[in-house]
């Protein structure tokens, strides 16, 4: 990527994140945007974002790839791998060559190499000394992450983290826990909705997510609200075909 196109991409990403924050937004949409932008700007092949849940475990809230095995792979990293190290230390973890990581995280190493990933950057989502989660970007190329790239990832992540708090009632303590809880619950709704769409439209789970996301974008709705309507059967995305569904603004 040339310097100018890169600069403009970074600026565009900040603008996009800021835009997400101004409108009535959902945390899952915000994190989804953050992840997709960072993956593209940093020329990575895949990425996943994990948030800590009520019992202190990391949960995948957004991923570039919805395939079950990729999500499972992210969870492996959340058990023992750069993701959890980044989360516990609150510092970015970069692994230039996963193959050379030895016995540090054997299970993660095997799983990553199997998927063709050779390097990873884990960026913490920090807030006043607390770590809320991590964003993990995977590349199929060996090599250390350029420090400037790492700084961009951190800056974008910080904007999104602040964004988590921007919703109403910012004064109230416990709002962070509340927001994380909501984000994780949104994710559960999305999974239930994926199941509904997969069954009604006879498509795979991955494709169900694509249908869900495109419906949300097309109708300018949050993923959560669409997922909720799908899960309680008040809308049926399986029947509304993408090409013919421009029914509402």
């Amino acid at each position: 990527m040339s310097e100018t196109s890169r600069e403009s991409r970074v600026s565009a990403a900040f603008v996009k994140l800021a835009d997400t924050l101004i409108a009535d937004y959902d945390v899952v949409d915000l994190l989804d945007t953050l992840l997709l932008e960072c993956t593209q700007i940093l020329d990575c092949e895949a990425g996943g974002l994990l948030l800590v849940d009520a019992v202190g475990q990391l949960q995948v809230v957004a991923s570039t790839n919805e395939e079950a095995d990729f999500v499972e792979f992210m969870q492996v990293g959340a058990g023992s791998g750069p993701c959890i190290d980044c989360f516990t230390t609150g510092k970015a973890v970069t692994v230039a060559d996963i193959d050379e990581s030895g016995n540090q995280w054997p299970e993660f190493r095997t799983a990553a190499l199997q998927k063709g990933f050779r390097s990873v950057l884990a960026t913490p989502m920090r807030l006043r000394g607390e770590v809320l989660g991590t964003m993990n970007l995977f590349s199929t190329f060996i090599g250390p992450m350029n420090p400037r790239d790492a700084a961009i990832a951190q800056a974008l992540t910080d904007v999104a983290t602040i964004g988590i708090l921007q919703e109403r009632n910012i004064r109230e303590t416990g709002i962070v826990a509340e927001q994380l809880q909501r984000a994780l619950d949104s994710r559960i709704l999305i999974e239930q909705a994926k199941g509904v769409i997969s069954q009604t439209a006879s498509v795979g789970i991955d494709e169900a997510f694509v249908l869900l996301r495109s419906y949300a974008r097309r109708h300018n709705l949050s993923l959560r609200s669409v997922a909720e309507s799908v899960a309680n059967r008040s809308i049926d995305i399986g029947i509304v075909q993408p090409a013919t569904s421009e029914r509402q603004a």
Partner: protein
Amino acid sequence: MDKPQDSHSVAPPIPSANGDDADLCSRFLGLYPITGASISVIDEAGNHSTICASDDTAAKLEEMQFDVGEGPHWEALHTGRPALVPNLQSGDTSAWPIFSEAVRQTEIGAVFAFPLNMGAVTIGVVDLYCSSSGNLSTSALSTALSLARSVTLPAARLAIRSAHAEAASTTTGTAPELRRVVHQATGMILVQLNVNATEAFLVLRAHAFSSGRTVHDVAQDVVARRLDFGATAV
């Protein structure tokens, strides 16, 4: 009627891992004007089991509602929304005549029931009571909602493991019984059987229980389309 004050309510902490079950109830007790709390979940047979009660009255309140089959607890469960009854002793309680009659024999002034929602699935209810009547303030209500959210996941884990020897996950990462595939299977089953999400989740767990398998295993079969509840008489 007591006028509720806008007191500083206790913030929901991010609870530590492996907090014991009693702790799930106690975190509601710092919330003014709540006197007691009980939490119950629905097991795979559709039965309600109490996972904690902060005192005898809280336990009795829940038992009473189970016995008579009506009350705010049931309303929260069926609607997936909070059922707030600020004045039980003299307010309009025509919606629950038997429950109201029973509750008048107690010291309970107000009951606030909150569903524990895991996405579209209601896995249980937390019943809060106050010894005097009165509304919850807006901030107390929002704190109660957020506390209810914070106990949902731990309660869901207990619900799934309550009767079945679902292997307790000690590893970090998501507990197997609550991985994505379980929620996806719930969505598929609700279409297959044309039921709501809560019922679909119950069917999934009941099937796992009766076949001696884990919820996670059965969910994988559903998502892989090896098992279709619509195709078989369940």
